[in-house]
């Protein structure tokens, strides 16, 4: 692990643990922070597909739903009650893994189709997940899944948000990640350069859906109640807003986008139903004034790994601790 990441990671985790354990922050503020964290996981993972890979997925809420329901089934129905609080981390990982498997299946259409057609596939996927859940009586159908315990706390959300940011960033700055970018730029040239285009698409979809599933699991155990309607097209649209608000092809953008969107939504709560009108209007304005989003394809320096080229160009810096 790079030095640049390890220390902040541990200290932030420690602080969030102290906040959780001693209630150092108002519980409403904690709740908003948890929404922010969950939304960061969602927007960073969606940016992998919509920004870095250059596709347009509108089915991310479907992945989130799969993660939410998988984890709820585990903690409520499968785990013994006494152990459930301790096994919660396993439920979150399992939710991610199950979602990742579904995500890998959804990568298959992306081998053959691109652009609008793939967008339709993801749209259909989101609708299928929702209607399957609405018709499964054993999962509460449209009424929803009740009796979920509140296992999600600020520490877990912070941990997973950092894991998502760290891993997606590790992926982007790797051969696989550069492969994803090359597919976005020119798929024919990518394959001629030896990029296994199916492999990179599969990897990107799997990673993206894994974290959407994790976010779903955290969300379920925060709200303590889930129903299919929570994961409809509106939810996917919300994620798209965060990604495009922050800027596509930028992890930093997704973090900023998720923060601003979530906090604004809370601040505008007194407006009631009108905030749902105001938000899209703000997005339209932003797209007109700053079409590439707040970060617009640029990245925070601290997110860029130090194995890279110095600003002078010719010299190579390699600060990361390498074994030899």
């Amino acid at each position, binding site marked *: 692990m790079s030095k640049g990441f390890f220390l902040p990671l541990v200290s932030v985790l420690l602080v969030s643990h102290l906040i959780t354990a001693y209630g150092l922050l108002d519980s409403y503020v904690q709740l908003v922070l948890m929404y922010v964290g969950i939304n960061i996981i969602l927007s960073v993972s969606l940016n992998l597909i919509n920004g870095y890979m250059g596709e347009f997925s509108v089915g991310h809420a479907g992945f989130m739903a799969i993660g939410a329901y998988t984890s709820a089934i585990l903690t409520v129905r499968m785990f013994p009650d006494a152990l459930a609080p301790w096994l919660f981390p396993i439920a979150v990982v399992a939710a991610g893994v199950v979602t990742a498997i579904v995500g890998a299946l959804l990568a298959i259409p992306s081998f053959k189709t691109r652009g609008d057609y793939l967008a339709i596939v993801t749209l259909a996927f989101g609708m299928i997940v929702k209607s399957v859940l609405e018709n499964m009586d054993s999962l509460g159908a449209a009424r929803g899944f009740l009796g979920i315990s509140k296992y999600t706390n600020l520490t877990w959300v912070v941990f997973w948000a950092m894991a998502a940011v760290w891993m997606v960033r590790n992926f982007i700055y*790797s*051969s696989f990640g550069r492969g994803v*970018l*090359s597919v976005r*730029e020119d798929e024919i040239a990518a394959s001629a*350069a030896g*990029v296994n285009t199916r492999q990179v698409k599969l990897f990107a979809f799997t990673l993206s859906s894994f974290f959407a599933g994790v976010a779903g699991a955290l969300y379920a155990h925060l709200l303590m109640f889930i129903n299919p309607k929570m994961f409809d097209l509106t939810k996917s649209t919300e994620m798209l807003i965060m990604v495009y608000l922050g800027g596509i092809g930028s992890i930093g953008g997704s973090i900023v986008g998720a923060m601003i969107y979530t906090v604004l939504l809370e601040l505008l709560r007194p407006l009631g139903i009108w905030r749902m009108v105001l938000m899209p209007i703000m997005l339209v304005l932003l797209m007109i004034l700053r079409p590439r989003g707040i970060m617009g394809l640029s990245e925070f320096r601290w997110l860029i790994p130090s194995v890279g*080229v110095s600003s002078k*160009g010719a010299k190579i810096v390699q600060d990361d601790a390498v*074994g030899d």
Partner: protein
Amino acid sequence: MLLVIDNLSHSFGGLAALTNISIVVPEHQLLGIIGPNGSGKTTLFNLITGMYRASSGSIRLKGQELVGRAPAAITRMAVARTFQNIRLFKTLSVLDNVRIARYGKAACGPFDTLFRTGRFLKEEGLIIDQAMELLTLFELDRYVEAPAGSLPYGQQRQLEFARALATDPVLLLLDEPAAGMNPYEVGKLNEQLQWVAKRFALTIILIEHHMGLVMEVCQRVVVLDFGVVIAEGTPEEVRNDPRVIDVYLGKGS
């Protein structure tokens, strides 16, 4: 023999782009392919690199059949190419353009990548070194961080050349590398082709309209016309072949 093309045919719908082509390329040869526009030269490259699947016939590299394999798999078998209309990853940096071509050589899997292990960092460092070496060789090291699309035309051609070499090819297919170059640049390309071929122990197939370059660089020339091989031999022989003069050289190209 490095490459054996046997009875290769390809048609687009009703249009026969190539008909019963047989070409044999020994190791370390520089083979030129010439022919009028639309004679099927680029199509031949697209068949060798798996961009199109041949309608019939076979292409064997060191005895292994290439027809039916995916482009990336063929690249991993050490066949690289450049494109007639330069195809760079325009918004990506010059360095990334070359690093991407190391994809097939990277050994780190998902685990090493996601957790950025020591093994991964070591490999990343190696990839940068290899890319920088090539960029320095092609005098592109000043531009490492510039988006590839921002380079002047000549440098873009050089970058595409470097990217192709980054895949560690034994067979390199160049589709009209001299297109759009002035006589001075063609002269430089001439020298470059010869030393690159030696240094990287390459076998090169060169599609080129620039006859001077072909005559000087290539040991053997194949002439295509309407998807058929109409002549083959040393540059001397081809130049004096009446059929070639008739269909190609005679037309003032």
